[in-house]
Every structure is written in C-alpha cells, then in structure tokens.
C-alpha cells in the first residue's frame, strides 16, 4: 500500500514535469516540423540560471525561478533568430536543424561545465517542510511543483484552444500555406512557439532541479523522457502529449518502486518499442499524424 502511494505520488510528479518538457517539443514539432535537440539544454539553462541567481545574488527563490524561465525563453529567442530562421528555406532543413540544435545543446552543456564545473548542485525549495503518509515522505515543494505544472499545462491548453495566437499556432501546424493566406505571419508564430517551448523547458528544469540535483548533463534524461512522451502521445497532439506524460511518469515510478531504479529507463524504452509496433501513430493517433 505504501509502495503504491509512493509510486503514484512520484509518478504524478514526474508526469507533470515531463508534460511541460514534452509539450514544448510537440509544439515545435507541430509548427516548425523539426525535432529540437537543444530542448534538454534549455532545461539545463533554466536550472543553472536559477542556481546562479540564488547562490550569487541572494534573490528570493521564487524571483530567481521566474527569471530563470525568462532566461530560457530568451535563449530560445536567440536560437530561433540566429540558427533556425536561416535554415527554414534550406532544402536539407530536416538534417540541418537536427545538427544545429544538437550543436547548440553541446555548446550550452560545455558552457555550463566551464562556468560551474562538473559537481552536482542543488537549488533550494520554494516551500520547506513535508509530511508523512505512513512511511511515504511528501514534501510541500513537490506538491507545489505538481500544482505549478498542472496550472501551466492547463493555461497552455487554454491558450492554444481559445486565444488568437493559439489558434494561429494550430492553423500553422495544420496547413501552413492556408495559414499564410489568413494573414498569419509565419515567422512571428515560429518565434512565439520557440519562446514558449523554451520557457516550458526552462520551467521544467527549474522545478525538477529543486527536487533532484543539477549537473552539466542533467538535461539529457528529461529530454529522452520527453521524446518518448511525444512519440507515445502522437507527435503534434497536445491532449495526447499531456495524457502520455502522466502515463509515462507513472510507469517510470512504478518500475522504480517495484523493480528498482535501474529498470526505469530500459522499461520505458521497451514500452515505447511495443507501443510503436502496436500503435505506430501514438496513443491518440487516428491513422494519421494528428496536429495541434
């Protein structure tokens, strides 16, 4: 019973953070039709900016968190303007953007290593304190992380459903030429998508590094999970991505609790392979690639 509670709590926590990460990936996939391999580096940037601000300037933790998210968004903005935009008309855009974003992630990881060294760091929690249910330790900060992630996922869904810009993003992902003919400025939409996506990755980095540790290669594991989630959710589908994030988060937590931590990643990939055989278009794919 306590194992079950532990697994459910961790699973929801992981799922919330994976949801933030994967939503960013899926937004970029949906509109720009590219895989952003720098997504893990943006996660890393969020975590380290928060760490730097808290340890060096003594800013309150929540202010540092907000600035870190903003910082990740700015890195996304620069990435889009300097690297992705020039590649848009390139005939080899698919491979070129993979290489460019992979290169970016290497640059950011190396910069972090240079600036902060290889040691693990920890960001303090916003809320101290915890309570116990049986032997399961639940801290307030973890609950806060879940709350923030859920609110952000909800707001993002609302933004995409109901706002003028959100509709423009979905229109671009469903039919780019028709979207242009509606007078939608494609480059601006790409820029907004990249900034929002980077901010979400940065937020995930900030939230998770305050529960676990952060180190120069800490972005890789969350990005791998986010990739599994986006593929499982049906690339480009927002509701599919959010459901998939919680399913993958819970699966990972159950594997950890019942089989041991070393089973988590192989288990996830085994699950993904089976899923790809059974439902090649993802959980919510209806025989076609679903769009935003």
């Amino acid at each position, binding site marked *: 019973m306590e194992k079950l509670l532990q697994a459910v709590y961790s699973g929801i926590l992981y799922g919330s953070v994976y949801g933030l990460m994967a939503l960013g990936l899926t937004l970029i996939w949906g509109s720009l039709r590219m895989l952003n391999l720098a997504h893990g580096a943006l996660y890393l940037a969020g975590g380290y900016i928060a760490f730097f601000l808290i340890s060096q300037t003594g800013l309150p933790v929540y202010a540092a968190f907000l600035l870190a998210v903003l910082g990740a968004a700015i890195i996304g903005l620069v990435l889009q303007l300097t690297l992705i935009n020039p590649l848009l008309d390139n005939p080899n855009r698919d491979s070129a953007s993979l290489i460019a974003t992979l290169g970016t992630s290497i640059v950011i990881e190396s910069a972090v290593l240079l600036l902060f060294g290889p040691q693990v760091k920890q960001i303090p929690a916003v809320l101290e304190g915890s309570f116990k249910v049986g032997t399961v330790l639940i801290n307030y900060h973890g609950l806060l992380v879940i709350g923030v992630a859920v609110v952000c996922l909800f707001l993002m869904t609302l933004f995409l459903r109901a706002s003028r810009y959100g509709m423009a993003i*979905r229109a671009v992902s*469903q039919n780019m*030429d028709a*979207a242009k003919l*509606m*007078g939608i400025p494609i480059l601006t939409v790409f820029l907004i998508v990249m900034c929002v996506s980077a901010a979400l990755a940065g937020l995930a980095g900030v939230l998770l590094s305050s529960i676990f540790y952060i180190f120069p290669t800490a972005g890789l594991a969350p990005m791998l999970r986010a990739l599994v989630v986006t593929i499982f959710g049906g690339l480009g589908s927002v509701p599919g991505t959010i459901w998939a994030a919680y399913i993958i988060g819970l699966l990972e937590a159950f594997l950890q609790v019942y089989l041991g931590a070393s089973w988590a990643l192989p288990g996830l990939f085994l699950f993904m392979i089976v899923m790809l055989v059974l439902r090649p278009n993802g959980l919510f794919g209806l025989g076609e690639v679903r769009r*935003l």
Partner: protein
Amino acid sequence: MLTVNGLTAGYGGSQVLHGVSLHVAAGETVVVLGPNGHGKTTLLRAISGLLRPTAGTVELDGVNLTHLPTEAIVAAGVVHIPQGDLPFPEMTVLENLLVGAYRPEAWAERHERLERVFALFPRLAERRKQLARSLSGGERRMLALGRGLMSKARVLMIDEPSLGLAPLVIEQVYNTIHEIKRSGLSILLVDENADHVAGLADRMYLLEAGTLVREGPAEELLRDQALLAAYLG
C-alpha cells in the same frame, strides 16, 4: 484597383507564367478561364505571395505588393481562397472562421463578420462546433469561402471553387459567389468551366500555357462558342 503587370513565375527551373497582365476594377468580377495545368493556380499563388514571382508587379490602388510577404498582402486586402479541401481539419468550423479574421483589423470586427457569414451560410452556423474534417465536400468549400469573407478583403481571389463537387452543390457554391458579388466586393475567379461563370463574370480573360490570349466582356467571350471550344476543349 488590383493591377497585375507582366507577372512571371514558376517552380524550380520551369517557368509557368509568362508575363501575365490583368486588372480588376472596384466591384468588378473578373474570371480567368483556362484548361487544367495552364497556370491558373500559379497565377493566384504568385499574386498572393505564396510563390515569389520572378518578374512583374502586383499593385493594389497603386501600392506595390509584389515582394511583400503573404501576411502583408492579406493585410492590404488581397485575400486568396485556395483550391482543394481540408482547410484546418482539426479545428472546428467556428475556429476556422475566426482564424480567417486573424488580422487585427478584422479581429476587432469578428463578431459582426461571423454573423454575416452565418447569415450567408446557415449550414455553417448549424455545424459551428464540428471539426472541419467531418464536413462534406460542399460544406468545406462553403467554409473556405466563409473564412475568406471573415477577412477584411477588398479583392477576393477564388481558385476553382467547383473542383470535385457534385453538380447540385456546384450550383449552391456559385449562387453564394453571386451573393458575395452583390455585396460589392471585387472578385478574381479562376475556373475551367465557362458554364459555371456565365452571368457571374463581368469581364473575362482566357489563359493558355501561362499567357493571357484573349480579354473581353464576359458576354462577348461566352457567346463565342467556337473560341471557347478551341481553348477549353
């Protein structure tokens, strides 16, 4: 109003349009007739900026639109309703229409515009909450027209609205275009069927192999059965 001068465009190495010049006056309905594969769609794509013309100019009331991005051309009031189906398949009818009013000038008036479109297409009002991909072919064409009307268009360019529709539905679609014409909007319509546009067109051009070969009042050209048979087969 809309003036196209010596427009040349193509795909990759192959040139499709060879110096096309035409004009559309305020409130006028102009039809470009031509067989399939002779550059009708390319002409509209080059005007709306989806395809970069290699030579020539596009002007609206003397303002040069030629090398502007598509969103600026739409903002100026030249709105292109493309050929084919499935506008934004995973969005509802209502969302599709709202996206049509994306430009700030149109967005501010979206509620009034929506009412007008729903009055013109009661069918769309009934299906407003349905996903666009669940509509029938005729309804999708209505949606494409309605979405174009959500914008602040001054010239509406319509690409072969009859394509792939049943005869009865085709009649409805052209009746609607008649009503749009009556509202005073300038229309540039490309088509391959002379019967569809009879009574609708004020002036016509015949397009053959990327060149405009004849121009004249619609009645005059449509009376010349031998000419139409020669060009359209």
